[in-house]
C-alpha cells in the first residue's frame, strides 16, 4: 500500500470543511480510484462484482464514477481486503434480534485511520482539549455483552474525546439525577460534551426530565446525537422539535446530529448550526435516482451513497445505503463550511410482498 494516494496525512492537516467541492472532488476521486484498484486486487468478491457489473471502459473522472456496493452486502458476505490473520477488530451493526448484522473487518491501519479522522472532526466540534462528558445512556450497555454492538462501540469511541465520563442513566435506564447534578457541580461554568442516541435521549432523558418537572443548567453543553430518526418519526418528532426540547429541558443550544454507519466508522457527517449535515474532506455524499442509479441534482430526493477514503481492510469506500435524502447545496451553506451539505429523510420505504408463497402467515 505504498501509493501516495493512500497517505492520510494531507487529509488530516487541512481544515475538514475548508475545501471547495470542485477541488475536493478531484482529490477524493484520485484516492477513490486507488482504493478501487486496491480492493479489486485484494478482495476476490469485490473483484468479481466489478468484473461482472462495472464497465471497464467507462470513465472514472468524478466521484459519481466510483463503483459502489450496496451496504446490505456486508450482512450477507464476509468482505475483506486483507488476510484474515491481520484482522484486528470486527465491528457489527446493531440489529434487532433476528435481523442479519453487518460484519466489518478492520486491520490496525484502518482502525487507526478511523480514529485519526474522528479525532480531527471532534476537535473541530469540541476544540483541541478534552471536555467533561455526560453520556446519555446506561453504563450497563457496555457490560452486557449481548447488547454490546454499535451502541456500545459508539459510546466507547466518542468517550475518547471526553473526560470525567459520566453516565446520565442508571443500570435500569432511569435518570440518575444525583450523578448528573454532582457532575454539573464539578464542571460548573465549563463547556460540557453530551453524547447519546437520538431516541434514547428523547425517551430516557428529555421525557424523564419533563415527567419530573425538572430542567438542568447545561447552557454550555454541546450535544452530539445519532442513530436515526425512525422511532422519533413514529412519534412525529422532527429535528426542530428535538432541538427545542433540548433547549427547554437542559438549556442546550448547540445540538449536533450526526449521520454515520458502522460500515464507514470515522468519517461521519456532522450537523452544522443551520441544521445541515456536512461532508468533511474525508468523505462525500451522492444522491442516486432509484429508477436509474444516476446521480441526482441538488434538491432532488433519492438513495444516499456515502464515500469515505478510510476503508482499506474491506471494500467499503463507496456504499449505496438504504436511506433516502437530498443534497441541500454545495459550498453555499450559511454556516461557512465548504463542500456538500445534505439532509436525510429516513429509510427507504418497505414494499408490499406479492406472490405465491407465505400463505399461512401469522398476521391477519
Amino acid at each position, binding site marked *: 500500500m505504498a501509493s501516495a494516494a493512500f497517505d492520510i496525512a494531507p487529509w488530516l492537516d487541512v481544515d475538514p470543511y475548508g475545501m471547495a467541492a470542485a477541488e475536493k472532488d478531484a482529490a477524493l476521486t484520485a484516492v477513490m480510484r486507488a482504493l478501487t484498484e486496491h480492493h479489486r486486487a485484494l478482495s476476490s*468478491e469485490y473483484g*468479481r*462484482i466489478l*468484473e*461482472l*457489473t462495472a464497465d471497464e471502459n467507462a470513465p472514472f473522472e468524478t466521484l459519481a464514477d466510483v463503483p459502489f*456496493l*450496496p451496504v*446490505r*452486502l456486508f450482512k*450477507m*458476505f464476509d468482505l475483506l481486503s486483507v488476510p484474515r490473520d491481520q484482522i484486528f477488530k470486527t465491528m457489527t451493526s446493531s440489529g434487532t434480534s433476528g435481523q442479519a448484522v453487518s460484519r466489518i473487518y478492520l486491520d490496525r491501519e484502518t482502525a487507526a485511520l478511523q480514529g485519526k479522522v474522528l479525532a480531527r472532526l471532534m476537535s473541530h466540534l469540541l476544540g483541541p482539549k478534552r471536555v467533561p462528558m455526560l453520556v446519555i445512556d446506561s453504563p450497563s450497555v457496555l457490560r452486557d455483552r449481548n447488547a454490546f454492538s454499535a451502541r456500545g462501540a459508539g459510546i466507547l469511541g466518542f468517550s475518547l474525546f471526553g473526560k470525567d465520563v459520566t453516565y446520565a442513566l442508571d443500570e435500569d435506564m432511569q435518570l440518575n439525577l444525583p450523578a448528573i447534578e454532582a457532575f454539573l457541580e464539578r464542571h460548573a461554568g465549563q463547556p460540557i460534551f453530551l453524547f447519546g442516541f437520538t431516541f434514547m435521549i428523547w425517551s430516557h432523558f428529555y421525557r424523564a426530565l419533563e415527567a419530573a418537572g425538572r430542567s438542568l443548567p447545561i447552557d454550555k453543553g454541546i450535544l452530539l446525537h445519532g442513530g436515526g430518526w425512525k422511532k422519533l418519526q413514529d412519534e412525529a418528532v422532527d429535528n426542530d422539535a428535538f432541538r427545542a426540547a433540548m433547549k427547554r429541558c437542559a438549556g442546550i443550544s448547540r445540538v449536533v446530529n450526526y449521520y454515520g454507519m458502522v460500515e464507514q466508522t470515522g468519517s461521519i457527517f456532522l450537523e452544522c448550526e443551520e441544521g445541515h449535515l456536512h461532508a468533511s474532506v474525508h468523505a462525500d455524499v451522492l444522491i442516486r435516482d*432509484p*429508477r*436509474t*442509479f444516476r446521480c441526482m441534482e441538488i434538491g432532488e430526493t*433519492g*438513495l444516499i451513497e456515502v464515500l469515505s477514503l478510510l476503508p482499506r481492510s474491506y471494500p467499503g469506500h463507496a456504499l*449505496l445505503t*438504504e436511506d*433516502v435524502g437530498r443534497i441541500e447545496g454545495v459550498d453555499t451553506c450559511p454556516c461557512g463550511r465548504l463542500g456538500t451539505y445534505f439532509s436525510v429523510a429516513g429509510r*427507504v*420505504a*418497505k*414494499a*408490499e*410482498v*406479492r*406472490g*405465491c*408463497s*407465505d*400463505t*399461512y*402467515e*401469522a*398476521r*391477519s
Partner: protein
Amino acid sequence: MKPVPDLPVTLRVGGRLSDITRQPLPPYAPEATAFLAALSKQLLALPEARQFPDIAAFAYWCRPASLARLQREFGAAHARLGRGLALHIAPANVPVNFAFSFAFGVLAGNANIVRIPDAGHPQVDVICDRIAALFDDPAHRRIAAMNRLIRYPRSDSITATLSQLCQARLIWGGDETVSRLRALPVHPRCVDIAFADRYSFCVLDSQAVLGASDTVLAALVKGFYDDVFLLDQNACSSPHLVLWHGTGQAEAAQGRFWSAMTDYLEKNYDLAPVHAVDKFVHLCATAIALPQARATRRHDNFVYRVRLDSLPADIERHRGRNGFFYEHAVDDLSCLGEIVEERYQTLTTFGIDRATLVQSIIAQGLSGIDRVVPVGKALDIGVIWDGYDLIGELSRIVHTA
C-alpha cells in the same frame, strides 16, 4: 357425519360453520354454474373490474361461455360427485387466488370452507361482497348453504379441527405451508392438493423475436410484463430464466426484446425504490455466488440480466425478483433434460412449437414442467393447474361395471 363445530373464526361470507350443508353436487351442477355466471356478471359490472385486472381476469374466467367450455372438456366418462367438504388455505399475497380456489371447489360439487387472506388487498373485499350479495339471493340458496369464506390468524388448532372433517384440502402457499399442514391429522379419506414451491422459465426463439412485426413484439412485451411484473416476479409461474433458442441471432434478438421491454416498463411499472436496492444487492450476490455468470447488464433499474456461459444444473435455485433474469442461449432444447427437475412448473414460450415441446417432455420422461403456455399466459390459473386436473381431483367417481 361428525358435526362441524363453530370455531373462533371471522365469518366473512356465509352463515355459521355449524350450519354448513355438506351434501355434494355433481361437477358442473346447474346450481354451481349459475352461481359463478352470476358472480361473473356482477363483477364485470363493477368499476373495480377496470381498476383491478385480476378481478377482471377472474370474472372473465367464470363467465357462462367459459364455464360451458370447461364442462365440455371435463367430459362425462364417469358418473361423479363432489368429495364432500373441501378446506382451502389460500395464499396471502395473490389477492384473487382464493376466489379461483373457491370456484374450483364449487364447480367440483363440494361444500367449501375457504380461509381467505387478510384485509390488505382491496380485491378480496370486492369479491367477497359480491359473493355475499348473491348468497342473499334465494336463487343461490343451495350454494350459499354449502360455502363459507372465513378469516383466522395462523392457528394449527382451527386448521386441525377442520382438517379432520374435510374430504379434500387445497393447500396453497408453498413448501412451508404444505409441510406444516401435512403434519396435522386429517380425515382418513382426505385428499390433499398441495401447491408446493415451484420454478418457472421462458424460451424465446431468437429468429421469431427478430422477425416479429412491431405489433407482435408489442404483444410479446405486454405478455411478458403480465407474466412477471403483475406479481413482482414472485408467482410460482413467473419466469426467472430466459432461454434464447438460436445462438447465432440471440444477441440481436435480446437487444430488440429487452429495449422494448425497458421502454414498456418505464411507462407502466412503478418501481419501488427498495426493489431497486434489492435487485442491486441480488446482482452483487449473484456475481459472488454463481460462477457461470459471464456478464451482467442493467437496463436502468427496470431489468437486470445475468448472462450465463453455461447452465448450472441447479439454476432453479437462482431466482430473480421484480425484473431480474438469468439468460442463456442454446441451439438445442434437449438441454432441458439437464436442468429440469420436479420443481419446474411453467414454461412460457414464443416462436416455439409447443406441441413438439410437450412431446419431447413426455419422450424424455422429465420429472418437471406441468405447463407449456404462450408468453402472457403464465398467471392464467385454471382447472388444470400445477399438473392437477382440479375438478377431477376434487370429485369422486361413482363407478359401475
